[in-house]
């Protein structure tokens, strides 16, 4: 049984957390994530969840308490955004390397400075190498769906990794949209009971968590982390299939929108992918063979599958809502271009860095990108590989 509702992204995320009913949530409020924590704390106060809610004095402590709870065998969650994620940094890496299946909604916001509360992906993209699985959502429905699936993905015995569930700040977090919620019992059944294999509280089988790990084993442990990420690719697909059976919704690594016969395409993640669909529809009416690849999973990066989906195209624009300041493009671009290198494809790939600090990205902006791709196809030339979209000269 599902239930059609109109909620903000933050309300939907709080509902997902309520239905997941974690053992422990330790969180610190930060715009635009604040409402998630505020609403969840109300659920705790109302007795609607069984969660031990730990109020902390900073995000560093939030992640530390979450790590502690997870090491004790609890199903533990937190949530953050932007500078909050930055303050967690040290412990974010420790969560992954300790192989703790924490689920953390990140309501994406531009990282300071200059200080800005609006959406871009500089927060999560900065954490791309932290060893967390990263899922991105086009809308509130997908953010909700990803949060529920994240529990299963992270806790899978072949994975045991934390998962970041990303949602665009304000654009999704503060906008009301229609979505369907699952019934509480369906979520409970889908995620199942969590039993950690090793926990600090298992006094029969005592363990140490976080001991010094020098030249002798550190490297092996990092390779095991990488292997877990490889395993996550398989598990993400399994969980997505099962979720689709339950709800009729969802995607594995990405959604292909009118991509099958497309000649030019945009690769985007998060809310802009939805706006790009409108641009594709307009161009299709004009006879332009435009398509879209909407990436759901950025970590691990589904290189083979992305390359296969794009290799037959003539030109692709990769959209990055974060800059790396490498001067050679954004983080998604780097991975997509690298993935395509192996398949020896002739597809031209260009990069647009867009929407930093919440700069609005319109249907017309994305049509402009498709027109640029059409120009590349017609002329056979790329005049500039990396561009900034919608920025004033």
């Amino acid at each position, binding site marked *: 049984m599902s239930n*059609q*509702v*109109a909620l903000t992204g933050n309300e939907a995320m709080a509902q997902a957390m309520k239905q997941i009913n974690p053992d422990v949530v330790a969180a610190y409020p930060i715009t635009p994530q604040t409402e998630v924590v505020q609403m969840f704390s109300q659920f705790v106060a109302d007795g609607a969840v069984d969660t031990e809610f730990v109020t902390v004095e900073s995000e560093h402590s939030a992640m530390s308490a979450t790590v502690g709870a997870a090491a004790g065998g609890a199903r533990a969650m937190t949530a953050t955004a932007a500078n909050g994620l930055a303050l967690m940094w040290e412990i974010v890496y420790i969560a992954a390397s300790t192989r703790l299946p924490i689920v953390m909604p990140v309501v994406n916001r531009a990282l300071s400075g200059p200080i800005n*509360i*609006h959406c871009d992906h500089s927060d999560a993209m900065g954490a791309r190498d932290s060893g967390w699985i990263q899922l991105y959502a*086009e*809308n509130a429905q997908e953010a909700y769906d990803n949060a529920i699936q994240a529990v299963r993905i992270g806790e899978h015995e072949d994975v045991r990794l934390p998962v970041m569930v990303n949602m*665009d700040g*304000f*654009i*999704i977090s*503060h*906008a*009301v*949209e*229609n979505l369907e919620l699952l019934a509480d019992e369906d979520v409970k059944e889908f995620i199942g009971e969590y039993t950690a294999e090793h926990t600090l509280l298992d006094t029969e089988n005592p363990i140490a968590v976080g001991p010094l790990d020098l030249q002798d084993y550190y490297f092996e442990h990092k390779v095991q982390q990488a292997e877990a990420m490889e395993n996550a690719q398989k598990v993400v697909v399994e969980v997505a299939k099962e979720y689709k059976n339950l709800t009729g919704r969802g995607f594995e690594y990405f959604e292909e929108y009118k991509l099958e016969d497309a000649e030019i395409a945009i690769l985007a993640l998060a*809310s*802009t992918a*939805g*706006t790009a*669909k*409108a641009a594709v529809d307009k161009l299709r009416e004009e006879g332009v063979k435009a398509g879209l690849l909407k990436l759901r999973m950025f970590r691990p990066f589904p290189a083979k599958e992305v390359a296969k989906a794009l290799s037959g195209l003539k030109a692709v624009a990769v959209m990055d809502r974060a800059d790396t300041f490498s001067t050679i493009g954004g983080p998604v671009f780097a991975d997509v271009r690298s993935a395509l290198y192996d398949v020896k494809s002739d597809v031209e790939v260009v990069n647009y860095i867009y929407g930093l600090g919440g700069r*609005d*990205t*319109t*249907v017309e902006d994305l049509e402009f990108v498709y027109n640029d791709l059409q120009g590349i196809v017609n002329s056979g030339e790329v005049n500039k590989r990396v561009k900034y979209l919608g920025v004033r000269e």
Partner: protein
Amino acid sequence: MANLTEIRWHGRGGQGSKTASILLGKVASKTGKNIQAFPEYGPERMGAPVLAFNRISDEKLTVHCQVYSPDIVMVLDPTLLESVDVDEGVPADGTIIINTTLQPSEIKEKLGFDGKVFTVDANGISTEEIGAPFPNTPMLGALIKATGLLEFEGFKTEIKKEFEKKFASKPEVIDGNMKSIERAYQEVKSE
């Protein structure tokens, strides 16, 4: 997109533009529409000009940018006409509904706008019915009458449920809000 209605709300911080857009969105959703309701988050200050938006459609909505060519503009404060270009991007057959004691013809002349203009004294109505100027809920009544966006009886049933949730701690204001909507529906003026 077929059957897509885009709305832009102009108000001042504290007047409830965001709340009005969310109430409209939630009610329209209950009637089976696909909806979006979202404010523009700037540096909000009490009294500063603010914006909120709606998209309402029979089809699934995927666009996630602001509304630039609204079919309907709602103006919650008449003094905004002095400082904000409220008809920006509005097509020639668009609709502007404004909280004012002036006549539609006077507003049309002031704006130099040729489309449809409706006026309603939402401050006066809410002051009488709720006890203070809360123009946002009466403006919803005016919107439904002027545009026929939703069927009025169904709208009232659903918005009452939203009020019952929103005002759970002060149920005494529900009747005043409902009366404000009803009166604005009756009293909104066209040319």
